[in-house]
């Protein structure tokens, strides 16, 4: 190895790979992989929402969603998810600047936001099933509602587990500034979950 090459290798080793490599190169394969996964996931959600619209348009038997669904509760759930997106970017900012305590605090808040959202969704589902008699077998409105919000809820649950693993690894000292790319990739997933809920809130609840 020449002297120049050795010096170059040494310099590369001094900085995290994610900061050296531009996007879509091996240093960012994780980010590329997550974006590819999210694109596929977006198509699934998009097809679900398109199917919901196709079943609903001009359907005289479709009820007014607000007669059954609680807008206030879901507006609060929307606000919680938006807040958790902010805490996620703050957690990323913390780990990118080597501030472990900031990372842990904001990642903890992100996990808490996800758990709060899931708790409120469980409360909502219980209310709709037990008190309003909604069921996937009753009609298309109920079926599409439970499928879309349930599929999204599964994503939130997955995000809570994902973020909890990062939080625990962070508390064990295994998430460092050099590995901030891991948090950025998790953040992409979490923000996507927020983005999808923004659309579901409008299409299922408000319209």
């Amino acid at each position, binding site marked *: 190895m020449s002297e120049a090459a050795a010096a*170059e290798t040494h*310099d*590369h080793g001094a900085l995290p790979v*994610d*900061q*050296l*490599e*531009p*996007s*879509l190169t091996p240093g960012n394969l994780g*980010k*590329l992989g997550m*974006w*590819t996964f*999210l*694109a*596929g996931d*977006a*198509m699934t959600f*998009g*097809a679900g*929402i*398109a199917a919901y*619209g*196709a079943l609903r*348009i*001009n359907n*005289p*038997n479709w*009820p007014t969603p607000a007669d*059954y669904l609680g*807008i206030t509760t879901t*507006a609060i759930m*929307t*606000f919680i998810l*938006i*807040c958790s*997106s*902010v805490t*996620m*970017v*703050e957690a990323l*900012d913390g780990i990118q600047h080597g501030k472990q305590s900031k990372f842990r605090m904001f990642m903890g808040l992100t996990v808490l936001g996800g758990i709060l959202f899931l708790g409120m969704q469980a409360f909502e589902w219980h209310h709709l099933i037990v008190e*309003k*008699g909604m069921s996937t077998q*009753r*009609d298309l409105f109920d079926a599409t509602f439970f499928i879309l919000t349930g599929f999204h809820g599964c994503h939130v649950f997955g995000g809570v587990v994902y973020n909890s693993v990062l939080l625990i690894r962070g508390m064990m000292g295994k998430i460092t500034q050099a590995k901030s790319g891991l948090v950025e990739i998790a*953040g*992409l997933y979490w*923000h*996507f979950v*927020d*983005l999808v809920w*923004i*659309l579901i*809130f*409008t*299409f299922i609840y*408000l*319209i």
Partner: protein
Amino acid sequence: MTTQAATGAYEVEHSGPNYIAVFIYLAVLTGIELGVYAMGLPHVAKVGLLVALAWAKAVLVAMYFMHLAMEKKALAIIAIVPVVLVTFLCFMLLPDLTSRMWTKTEHKIGATNPAETGENPVAPPPRPMPKQ
């Protein structure tokens, strides 16, 4: 080479958008959505406004929280693909939507047994009126 790599690092390094400002925009847009929902506008205007507001919020999240505004265009192309495909899907559904005929069903509140009501047992049970 080392200099180029270092320059690349500066290019990739996110200058950091003002996340609190994005959060405020999202919160305000959500408030406007609820206002539009409660205002009792004509249905078409209400749907148009709500969809536009939802897309505005989604774009804010994608551009700033997901850093698409600061990333290379290749990632933006990956992100735009599902939007294009789902839009295409919606157009593909249009012929079916415009030619489909719905039958209005009259729900008989209180009578749910098909043997008593004479309804098709395959049809879904009647939807009870929501509790006030």
